[in-house]
């Protein structure tokens, strides 16, 4: 068998040399250097796809990463924004912003009451549920709770707009814009704004305010619950230092208005006539 194998040839009709001649003709015709199209290679495509996903991911984080700062009932909170602007949050207020997107747009979402001191620069916008306040660099106070929305301007110029009706006003120092239920603005001029921002300096100032609102403010400032407050609508005027305790402030208010109250537990008070 071994011997037979040595004697066997495959009956190819074309010799190796003939085949080479055919190939050589083609080889000489083809250019020696070829441009390789990298974009067709699967590795390159994968790398492309991966880098696009990565860039989108990073951009997404930069754009949408947000920080929320909150002042809980009974506490104030001072928030420093990336450009040095500050927001003093009154009790039970919250603010959120996009720290990495800050250099492109100074937008914050805000609910509650806050005193803003904005560094000069590009447009600074505060979005709340009912209204939008836009400034370039100034200081102002926003009150946005439940259906109420009002803005007081301390320095600079502030543009206030209703989110629904798109009505807007521009207010200058010592003016105050109050959003009405109809979606229009009521601008008060020459307002003494020390009352409006008194809370920043730990003062509680009530100027002919309905009693139920006064009790709500006390609840927020001290983080307490006051039961049976809803029926009191009479107006009340008075000043307090926030360093006083909740029971002392409540005592002053109730005494002058002829209301009795008792402490039910640590943070709960009950009003009665």
């Amino acid at each position, binding site marked *: 068998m071994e011997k037979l*194998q040595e004697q066997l040839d495959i009956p*190819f009709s074309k010799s190796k040399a003939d085949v080479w001649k055919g190939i050589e003709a083609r080889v*000489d015709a083809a250019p020696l250097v070829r441009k390789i199209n990298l974009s067709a290679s699967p590795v390159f495509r994968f790398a492309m796809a991966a880098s696009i996903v990565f860039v989108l991911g990073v951009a997404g984080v930069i754009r949408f990463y947000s920080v929320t700062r909150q002042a809980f009932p009974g506490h104030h909170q001072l928030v420093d924004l990336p450009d040095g602007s500050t927001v003093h949050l009154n009790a039970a207020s919250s603010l959120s912003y996009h720290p990495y997107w800050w250099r492109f747009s100074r937008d914050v979402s805000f609910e509650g009451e806050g005193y803003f001191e904005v560094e000069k620069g590009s447009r600074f916008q505060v979005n709340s549920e009912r209204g939008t306040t836009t400034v370039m660099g100034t200081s102002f106070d926003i009150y946005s709770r439940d259906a109420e929305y009002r803005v007081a301007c301390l320095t600079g110029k502030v543009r206030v707009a209703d989110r629904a009706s798109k009505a807007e006003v521009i207010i200058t120092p010592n003016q105050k814009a109050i959003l009405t239920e109809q979606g229009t603005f009521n601008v008060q001029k020459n307002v003494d704004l020390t009352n409006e921002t008194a809370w920043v300096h730990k003062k509680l100032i009530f100027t002919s305010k309905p009693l139920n609102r006064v009790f709500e403010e006390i609840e927020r400032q001290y983080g307490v619950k006051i039961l049976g407050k809803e029926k009191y609508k009479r107006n009340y005027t008075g000043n307090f230092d926030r360093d006083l305790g909740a029971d002392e402030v409540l005592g002053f208010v109730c005494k002058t208005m002829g209301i009795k109250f008792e402490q039910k537990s640590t943070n709960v008070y009950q009003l009665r006539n």
Partner: protein
Amino acid sequence: MELTFRPLTKHEFKQLFDRHFDAIRNYIYYRSGDAELSTDIAQDVFLRLWEKQTEYRERENVGLLYKMAADEFISRYRRQQVELGYLKSLSFKLHDVPPDEELQYKELQQKYEAALADLSDKQRVVFLMSRSDGLKYHEIAERLGVSVKAVEKRMKYALDFLKLKLNVR
């Protein structure tokens, strides 16, 4: 994006061709039993390797040639099977045989060809690559993309089968 590097020179390509053309053509012949088809496919894969303009790395280049040849054979074989049905036989021609022994050789040759055709595809390829082309087991394994163990096994079965069929030794 573009990138240039030094591709296979004509000289290197010729060298590859000289060293491996026969083995690759034989390989397809062992699988197909069709001399024309084998020449065709072997020429084709060499041209395709040239057109790829890869770098000169003999082991990789040869591996690629075998792979392309096998793939090409399978795709043509499938087509052909649909068209005509595949003719499964191998034939060889004798050379340098002393005239007095010619008849004896002819007889043996016929048995041998029939026996080879009866072997399985894989066993026949391994057997012939080893015996006719003189390739070492590890070379066969590398070119077919199987383990050396598998080559040894196929070889053993092929030898047992042929001995039985040819009544030799």
